[in-house]
């Protein structure tokens, strides 16, 4: 049997893992399911594209690709700036909307507000860039043969490597640094954390910044591997939620593993049932986890 679908699942799973990490962090520290998180992926992808276009016109030539990848250091730099900008966008939306809802003690309406934000952000992209799909690069890539008849393009391998790097970084950040410890404290109990001197507002800012930045990287990866469209992030929202819940809400390693599980499950479905049912996989996984183990793999309580 050709195991190519496993490779494809891993690559998609890597993107999902980065997105789901943001979902799970927001959920743990701010205590609401952010329906606008998918839009951070899309905005990250479009911001990178726009920055690359700007840089290209400043230099007088489009950013060069570095063999064997279809993009070069230039776009990588643009992606980093876009990640910072997307984190900034998340902070801005928090300052304008979510923070005020928190201060008023009506955090329950935050889910609804995030749904409104998601529609508005996506429609804004459609208004700015239209729904026409775009690509970072038109170059065709030859897939390299790996083990067991599996193949992967250099871009796919690069995305997997970046994900492993970022996943390790985030896990160390949450587990080993001062800000990570404060984040865990706020996730546990914000009032108690505040009592012992944790700056809860700063933790929340760090959460948005980190979640937004990771989402932007996921968006660039998705744009690189598939295409850039205004609805790209929204379509990944259910898989990201599923990944976060499968892994256990609040757990960063859980979100990473959950992402890979959802990605591989999707690829398996595409291979054996049909591509049109891909989006139902996340829902099936979600329902299965809610039935069997609502706390997920690494979560504590649901």
């Amino acid at each position, binding site marked *: 049997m050709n195991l190519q679908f496993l490779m494809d699942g891993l690559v998609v799973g890597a993107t999902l893992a980065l997105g789901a990490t943001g979902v799970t962090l927001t959920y743990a520290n701010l205590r609401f399911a952010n329906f606008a998180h998918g839009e951070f992926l899309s905005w990250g992808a479009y911001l990178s594209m726009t920055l690359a276009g700007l840089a290209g016109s400043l230099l007088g030539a489009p950013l060069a690709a570095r063999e064997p990848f279809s993009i070069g250091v230039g776009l990588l730099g643009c992606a980093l700036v876009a990640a910072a900008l997307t984190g900034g966008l998340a902070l801005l939306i928090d300052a304008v909307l979510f923070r005020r809802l928190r201060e008023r003690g009506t955090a329950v309406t935050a*889910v*609804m507000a995030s749904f*409104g934000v998601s*529609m508005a952000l996506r*429609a804004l992209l459609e*208004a700015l860039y*239209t729904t026409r799909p775009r690509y970072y690069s038109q170059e065709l890539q030859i897939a390299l043969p790996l083990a067991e008849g599996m193949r992967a393009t250099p871009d796919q391998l690069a995305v997997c490597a970046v994900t492993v790097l970022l996943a390790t970084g985030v896990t160390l950040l949450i587990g080993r640094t001062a800000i990570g410890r404060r984040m865990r404290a706020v996730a546990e109990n914000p009032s108690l954390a505040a009592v012992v001197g944790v700056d809860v507002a700063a933790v929340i800012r760090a959460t948005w910044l980190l979640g937004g930045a990771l989402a932007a990287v996921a968006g660039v990866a998705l744009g690189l591997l598939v295409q850039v469209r205004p609805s790209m992030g929204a379509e990944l929202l*259910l898989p990201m939620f599923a990944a976060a819940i499968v892994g256990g809400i609040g757990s960063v390693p859980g979100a990473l593993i959950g992402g890979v599980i959802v990605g591989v499950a999707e690829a398996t479905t595409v291979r054996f049932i049909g591509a049109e049912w891909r989006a139902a996989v*996340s829902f099936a996984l979600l*329902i299965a986890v809610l039935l069997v183990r609502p706390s997920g793999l690494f979560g504590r309580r649901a």
Partner: protein
Amino acid sequence: MSGAWTGWLAYAASFGVMVLIQGVACLGLNLQWGQTGLFNVGVAGFVAVGAYTSALLTSAAVDGRLGGYELPLVIGVVAAMAAGGLVSAAVGALTLRLRSDYLAIATFGIAVVVDLVARNAAGLTGGTLGISFIPRPFEALAERPLTFALATFALVAAVTLLAYLLLERLVASPWGRVLRAIREDERAAASLGKSAASYRLQAFTVGGALMGLAGALQAHTLGFISPENFAAAVTFQVWAMLVVGGTGNNRGVLLGALLVSALWSATGLATAAAFPPEEQARAAALRIVAIGVLLSATILWRPRGLLGERTAVSRHLDD
């Protein structure tokens, strides 16, 4: 009457039908969120379940598609409510005992899956082409557009009024009081022997049945449904109606339905006039941005909406 007038009146009647149908779905959402505090981010999915159920049962048979039983409309509508309620009950049973946001995520998933089935299971739903030739009441009057439009409006208005009055009774009843008690303080309600889980499930189910009813009404007034009729934007609009009109207030819901629909249609006419054809898609996107901003602004500055929930403690107390 002159031709222009009859045209306007027919337009007004069909606009009214649209407002009332979304109003019925919004009444269901108000029971779920307004009275009971349950998030439903998949309103469009529940409406679609109702619409497809009734369409399949009442329309004529088509080769290669299930359904086509030509049952009476009333049976279709009742089945649509049952289907909407049943799907809600299933989702509710699964998620209501968990953290509140799980319900939101699960309902979002339901909407995605319903959309997927509507698009891909062509043998059941007609796929992207949808289902056409759904029987409409007063089909015999179709020759005279104005009479047809007014009769349809009268019927939909009567159904909406019935749903409204029923809900007002329910909300004022001891049952409605328990819902609000659970929403405000679950532990206090439980200490009085009320099972929060059971009441939540009941409210969620009845709300879903109302969304199914809205779907059936839509199918039988348009005579045609396709996946496009149940896009995520529908959920978004129904939520905007609830929040703008007044969460927890059924009259506010209907006012919100009127205002948001009017705003939607007015901005549609304005952008159609102001933008060249090639920019129409962008202009349509800007309308959604506008509704999103309206929704967020209302949540921020007027969280009670235009007509807020009536204070239940005493009319002598200000909130």
